[in-house]
């Protein structure tokens, strides 16, 4: 079944077209990675997929229903979005932040219901931040904060989770923790789509990749099919070497430092 589908969508910032006629399907329960060079339109695509932005033409369908006909609240009950970085203007505690994930289910003036508290507790457990729950969010490291935001998205109990570069700025341990967490959630039936800059992490965790280039889908397939010297050279304009990961039979990408055209000129 198709969870989320974009049909011939276009989007421009001012006069610059950043998403150009993109048709893409995210299958239910898959772990999809969206890769591509800076400015390829990955982040914009993600925002169009969850309704933060509206396409100029074409439409986005969520389980077969067009986003345009649904309230933001209804969409938020099905799709959660984790931005690359969150600035916390007010210093809420971790559990306050996670509880905000329940917003799409709450009524104005209503109190926090038992199921809201329960979902919050579960999300805090799942994200492994139990010991942080009473801490003010601005006292946390960026890796911890990213897990708090992820917990908030989990508390939203979505069917689809969209993430924009969730591991950028994080150290190895935190990268690992986040990706393992996503992997677990995916194994339990959550559809995950991640925009990634880190090709090797994408290769390790995503079962399918989409390569974006100049606002279009350049190609899609398994990491094994896509992470080739030819495709990466076309898209990134730089020469790379591919080897196999020692533990898992997936490609890993390294820069080719000898014979780079640009460096020699």
């Amino acid at each position, binding site marked *: 079944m198709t969870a989320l589908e974009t049909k011939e969508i276009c989007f421009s910032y001012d006069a610059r077209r950043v998403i150009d006629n993109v048709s893409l399907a995210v299958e239910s329960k898959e772990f999809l990675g969206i890769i591509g060079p800076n400015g390829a339109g990955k982040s914009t695509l993600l925002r169009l997929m969850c309704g933060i932005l509206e396409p100029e033409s074409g439409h986005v369908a969520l389980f077969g229903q067009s986003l345009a006909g649904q309230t933001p609240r209804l969409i938020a*009950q099905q799709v959660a979005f984790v931005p690359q970085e*969150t600035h916390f203007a*007010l210093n*809420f505690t971790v559990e306050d932040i996670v509880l905000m*994930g329940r*917003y799409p289910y709450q009524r*104005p003036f209503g109190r926090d219901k038992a199921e809201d508290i329960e979902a919050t507790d579960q999300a805090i457990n799942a994200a492994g931040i139990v010991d942080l729950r009473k801490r003010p969010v601005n006292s946390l490291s960026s890796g911890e904060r990213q897990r708090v935001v992820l917990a908030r998205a989990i508390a939203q109990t979505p069917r689809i989770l969209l993430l924009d570069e969730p591991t950028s700025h994080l150290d190895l341990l935190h990268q690992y923790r986040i990706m393992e967490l996503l992997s677990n959630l995916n194994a339990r039936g959550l559809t995950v789509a991640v925009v990634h800059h880190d090709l090797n992490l994408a290769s390790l965790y995503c079962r399918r990749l989409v390569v974006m280039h100049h606002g279009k889908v350049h190609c899609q397939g398994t990491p094994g099919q896509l992470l080739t010297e030819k495709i990466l050279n076309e898209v990134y304009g730089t020469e790379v070497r591919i080897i196999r990961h020692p533990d898992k039979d997936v490609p890993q990408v390294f820069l080719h430092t000898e014979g780079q055209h640009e460096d020699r000129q």
Partner: protein
Amino acid sequence: MTKTALIIIIFLAAIAAGILVGPAPLESQILQLRIWRVVLGVFAGGVLAFCGCLLQGLFGNPLVEPYTLGSASGAALGASVGILIFGAINPALAFLGSLGVGFFVYVVARIEGGILRDRLILAGVVMSFLCSSLVMIIMVMGGRELYEVLYLLMGYLGTIIDATNRTMIIALIVVSLVLAALLYRFHRELDIISQGTETAASLGINIQRFSLILFFSSALLVGMTVSIVGAIGFVGLIVPHVSRLLFGPKHRFNLAASFILGATFLLFADMLSRTITVYELPVGVVTSLVGVPFFIYLYRK
């Protein structure tokens, strides 16, 4: 809990002080006046601080208040025009000023597909200056109305209540309190919006609609307040900060606490304004006179 009890006790003390302390000995006529003053103080202080809290939350900016967004100055301009034309404050003109400036600020900040929130604040500040200049022109042209415009600009709770304005003031107070109570429902949205508009949108908040509702509702509230007691500054700016220091960031507490603390602050300020000199000072003079050192103390602590 104890903090809640404490601010309620201080609030009640402020009401008691508002009724008991004054230049004249307490008897039935004076009591009537003091009760009105307390009612106006609770209403104006509460509503201004509430709006300040609302707007600071909406814009994620601690320097925003009804003044920075131009609505207070717009209302003052409208009211001054009323003084010049009709010889008295006309609430309709005050709303018109407040909403008119609000609308203008909105148009300036509008871009295709939404509003730029930073530009909204900038436009508001610029419009405040424009309104102040226009009020200045009215003051120069007016002559005899000068005092009235001056007290309107600084705010004054000792205004005369008679048959011509009693019903209107009661109606405005009731409408404002109902509107404030309705806006209180947005406390969750304000919590969420502090994490950025994208996060808020992804959690199901219609940011454009939400911002518009809050922006124009608070412009309306400020317009109503200014038309009764004038443009009292500083309450909307500092009270929400005090409230956050006491109760943390949650708007469920802050909106309510700002109302109570704003009312308390204005009651004490008014008590001073009518007792420290033989003359009646505009209460805005006292709010800034007392507010500034208190604010500095609070932040150096």
